[in-house]
């Protein structure tokens, strides 16, 4: 693996997602504290989660985010997924700046362009595996028959054809994560975001999930965050974060 290459050197089509010099500052404290601060009695306690980080991901590419806990990996992922807005800098998903969108439009953008795989799966416990996978298609107005077919196909693709009608509580951690991957792919998004996708899994199951993510990246961009070297090994490029700032990059041209 090439180490410490320069910035992203893609010269082809524009990236699926681009974060340019993004910072994210959280203001902490109670409402009373906020009032006190407004009255100038105390300074605002600020936590800088990200400080001027930049990253891009192109179609067919897996970009890894590494760094210790509290380095800003998850915050950067949330910004790239459009779940949060940067305090400064800009994030564009398929050339659409997320800061220019209303909450409703950002949700729609996520529905159409972003698939998210969470460390703790976050499947809806009352729904079957197939219903969990098909849920985003309900929002898109896809017919029930097509939803069922598409969800079943994806569950077959991740090797869960015999778990279609099982609920999350009846599935192992690895199976749940594969259901989550199938859900992330159901709308055929251009970008897949994965936050510690193997964090809750044993080594063998984690390898299975990683091979699914590698397959997923063939025709879309994947950004995954992990502090596990084995997980990051599937990445084409890795961006290292520390204290909210990019401190190193390796891989790529």
């Amino acid at each position: 693996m090439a180490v410490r290459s320069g910035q992203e050197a893609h010269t082809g089509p524009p990236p699926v997602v681009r974060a340019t010099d993004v910072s994210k500052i959280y203001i902490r404290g109670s409402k009373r504290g906020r009032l006190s601060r407004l009255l100038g009695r105390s300074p605002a306690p600020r936590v800088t989660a990200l400080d001027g980080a930049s990253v891009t991901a192109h179609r067919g590419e897996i970009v890894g985010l590494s760094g210790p806990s509290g380095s800003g990996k998850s915050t950067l992922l949330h910004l790239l997924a459009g779940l949060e807005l940067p305090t400064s800098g800009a994030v564009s998903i398929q050339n659409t700046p997320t800061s220019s969108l209303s909450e409703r439009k950002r949700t729609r953008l996520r529905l159409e362009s972003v698939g998210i795989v969470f460390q703790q799966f976050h499947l809806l416990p009352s729904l079957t595996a197939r219903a969990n996978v098909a849920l985003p298609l309900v929002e898109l107005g896809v017919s029930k028959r097509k939803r069922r077919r598409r969800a079943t196909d994806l569950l077959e693709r991740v090797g869960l054809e015999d778990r279609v009608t099982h609920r999350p509580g009846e599935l192992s951690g690895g199976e749940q994560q594969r259901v989550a991957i199938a859900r992330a792919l159901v709308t055929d998004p251009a970008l897949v975001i994965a936050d510690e996708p193997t964090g809750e899994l044993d080594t063998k199951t984690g390898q299975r999930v990683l091979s699914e993510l590698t397959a997923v990246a063939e025709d879309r961009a994947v950004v995954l965050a992990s502090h596990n070297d084995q997980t990051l090994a599937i990445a084409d490029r890795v961006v290292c974060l520390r204290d909210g700032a990019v401190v190193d990059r390796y891989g790529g041209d």
Partner: protein
Amino acid sequence: MQFNVLGVAVAIALLVMVTGLGIGLATETTVYDDDIDYWIVPAGEGDRSPLVATGSPQFGDVHERNAEIAAIEGVDSTTPILTEVARIEHGSHSEFILVIGVIGSPGVDRVAGVDAQPLTADDPYYHGEDWTGEIVLSGGASSLLSASSGDSVTVSGNESFAVTAVDDGGGSMGEVPTALVQLSELQTLTGADGSDQADQFVVGTNDPAVAEELETVYESSSVLSRGELTASQTLDSDLPLALALTAFIISLVIGTLFVVTTTGLEIVADKTQLATMSAIGLSTRSQVTLTGVQTLSTTVLGGIVGSLLGLAGILAINEGIGRVLTVDSVALFHPLLGVYGVAVALIIGLLSLPYLFVMTRRVSGGVP
């Protein structure tokens, strides 16, 4: 969700039981013969109960008119009814008893659940014959007075009555202590003999055509069939209406507060799920819709369970009271009460929705 279903079910079950009890009480307070098909009551009669008829309009010349009614083709039996609550004394016992004056005849078998056959037919005292002093006691009255057949009793200070029979059989009046006497003799005791007065007529017939003729007996009267009287009393009686209305309002308020509180807490507890839905692209509108559907289905399910519990409760009440008081039924058991319960549950769900929508909007979004 189970808590919501249970909470709504309890509120609806109580509503159904109280409403059934209210309607049941409203429809069981009429003095009637078990085989009677029509009542002739003074116009506007529906707004009072014969049990508390003091001062209400009455019919006059009832013996004469009773003979006219009996002559109508198709009429099997008829008697005027005069009711008074009177003090009856026997030995050291002194109780207020519902005393009903009737004209005995072969067709008039039971009045207010008490056998009228032991009374000499055709009210002899009215026709100038001797005072009979006959009195038939219900089981309850007999027990209160410790009087049995052949004992002498004093009715409203008149000592010339003797117990002709004691009827232990349960009837429509259940355990209400009741006594049957000759109509003219009760009129004499109460001063209603001057105009030969009574409160109502009960007429037994199998021919619906007689209703028209019955209406001509008195100008200001209403002829009601059993169903009409029940409906009339149910609608006109204020107490059961107040009871049912109170139960409705309390169920609505308690049910709504319960659903709002528990579902609100559930929404807060399910914040992660809502955030997940937002993350995967489900709009707030869809989440609100989901909350609405979930709330309505939960409350309707609670309504169905509650209605079934309420109807079962009515059966239990009737069974329990029947064993203790030998009454056929106190609370009304009708499938429509179940429909009513489900409808009220649906209203509870609808009333809860605005707050839950606001809660969902507030909690939705963010990072799971």
